[in-house]
């Protein structure tokens, strides 16, 4: 962040800072709203209330529900008995939970790996293209990025439609027997399509962000390396990579988080294909258990596993940000 506007916590007010001016900290020079002590707190209250209502309280309720026998009867007003960790023992003892968890982790791993590798490659490519091609590629990447997850999934569903889809049409034209082939009613090809959608939507953000980071590397350094005889791989490894590594790690954490909680793509393809048991990931399973079959307690326990995984990744993410002195 811009240093100077915000002096670091603990700095003596009035003491000269590296940038010379510390407007917010000087008594009597508080700018527009500076003098009132309680004001900053008042200004954050609406945000805190909104976050508490839409996120905090639902999160607390989730924890409470996960320790309750909360089912259909409770829907009609019966009190929910506390069952301690029974919901967790139930799901951890269920082999289906481990199956879904493993599936989610594998899906996430594949999606993140493909997205990051392809995204980095596209970022490098963006830097090497001429202006016309670079603009054309940027615009088409933007199209993929801007498309809402739901419409994107619906469109891909149409592209892979068994009867009139363009993929089956093209494969049949090429001599393969794909007429009427249903992609989404068999788990393996189901996940192939889902993976394609997630990666297709994920690449642009990674590519743009890494490309931006690469343009921050001074041209002179690159040229010096080239003059010294470094191959393009060596230049990438020894010059580009160290420059983009911090942001790469952050992107990795973000992508992992996003791909672990993937819901819309899976849910919509499940509605098209009809195989839910063999294609559930954590998100869809929690939804189907909790909201679908009204086992709110068990659903909440599954959802908390998701929150736990996200939390682990978040702590890593925030630690990275502290390291980079962004807070």
């Amino acid at each position, binding site marked *: *962040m811009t240093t100077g506007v915000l002096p670091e916590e603990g700095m003596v007010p009035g003491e000269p800072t590296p940038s010379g001016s510390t407007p*917010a900290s000087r008594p009597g020079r508080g700018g527009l709203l500076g003098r009132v002590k309680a004001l900053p707190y008042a200004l954050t209250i*609406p945000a805190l209330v909104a*976050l508490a209502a839409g996120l905090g309280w639902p999160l607390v309720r989730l924890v409470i529900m996960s320790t309750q026998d909360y089912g259909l009867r409770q829907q009609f007003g019966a009190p929910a008995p506390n069952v301690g960790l029974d919901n967790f023992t139930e799901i951890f003892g269920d082999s289906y939970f481990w199956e879904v968890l493993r599936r989610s982790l594998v899906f996430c791993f594949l999606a993140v790996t493909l997205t990051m590798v392809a995204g980095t490659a596209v970022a490098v490519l963006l830097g090497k293209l001429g202006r016309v091609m670079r603009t054309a590629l940027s615009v088409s990447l933007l199209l993929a*990025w801007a498309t809402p997850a*739901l419409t994107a999934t619906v469109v891909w569903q149409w592209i892979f439609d068994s009867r009139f889809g363009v993929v089956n049409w093209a494969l049949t034209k090429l001599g393969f027997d794909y007429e009427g082939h249903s992609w989404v009613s068999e788990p393996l090809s189901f996940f192939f399509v889902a993976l394609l959608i997630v990666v297709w939507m994920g690449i642009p953000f990674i590519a743009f962000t890494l490309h931006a980071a690469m343009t921050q590397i001074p041209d002179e350094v690159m040229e010096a390396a080239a003059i010294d005889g470094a191959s393009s791989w060596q230049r990438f490894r020894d010059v580009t990579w160290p420059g983009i590594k911090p942001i790469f790690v952050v992107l990795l954490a973000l992508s992992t988080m996003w791909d672990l*909680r993937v819901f819309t793509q899976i849910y919509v393809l499940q509605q098209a294909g009809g195989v839910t048991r063999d294609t559930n990931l954590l998100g869809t399973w929690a*939804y189907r258990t909790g909201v679908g079959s009204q086992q709110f307690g068990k659903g909440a326990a599954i959802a908390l596993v998701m929150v736990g995984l996200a939390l682990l990744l*978040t702590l890593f993410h925030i630690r990275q940000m502290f390291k980079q002195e962004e807070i």
Partner: protein
Amino acid sequence: MAVVAPVKVPPVVAPAKADRGRRRPRRRWGLNLIALVLILLSSFPVYWMFTTSFQTNAAIRSPDQELTPVGGTLHNYRSVFDSDNFTTAFANSLKVTALTVVLALAVAFLAAVAVSRFRFRGRVAFLVMILLVQMVPAEALMISLVKVLEGWQLRNTIIGLTIAYLAFVLPFTIWTLRGFVAALPVELEEAAMIDGASRWGAFWRITLPLVAPGLVATGIFAFIQAWNEYTLALVVMIRPEKETLPLWLQSFNYGARGTDWGGVMAGSTLITVPVIIFFLFVHRRIASGLTAGAVKG
């Protein structure tokens, strides 16, 4: 400047690079070819959605597909407007989106001023909390959100859905606006006050207009989020007359069961086009906001 660090557009091929390119024309061609394939892969779905939406059902079902747009009919769009609930869903989407944008901007701006203009106890904690809550998966909260909103008698209401959306867009909007406010020198406000403006006068005439681009960018972000959102709407708005556009599209798609791709693509186009247009304006800020200051300028 981290949060709003502009994604720098690299300079038009530097002379040295042009030299390198000239030395290896074959390699340039190879790269262009790869780029061309990527362009096709990346834009094909959007292109295909658009093309299909203007085709007759006969052309869509013909065994010989046309990859280039031929002919054209508005029939699919008519069937969308005639379908159950489209106009209601459109109105619902507009309402919840507008409400989310307005509230998010107001609330986030106040918080952004607090964290970028004041040093106060708990400031760092507040910022860390913003980052933390940003990572809570909405998909995990679906279940309890239903119960919470039912308890407040707000399930199936615009207000209820807005409460949920607001919480999920706030972290990003606060973080991004914080960058904009922090970039504004306090001296500008002070100068206006020395020249005789009141505090609020200085705020209205100086601060607000200067932060306006930031408000527009974050407002568009909130718009896109609320307009696209599917997961939370799926559990909050379960009555047909309360559907938002994404919910409408999926019931239309599911109901058609692969028989009306023209209509489904017309619906998809209607939902997607405004988002793409807005997106073109703000994608740079979204990129830098999502990584929350990870790019050090």
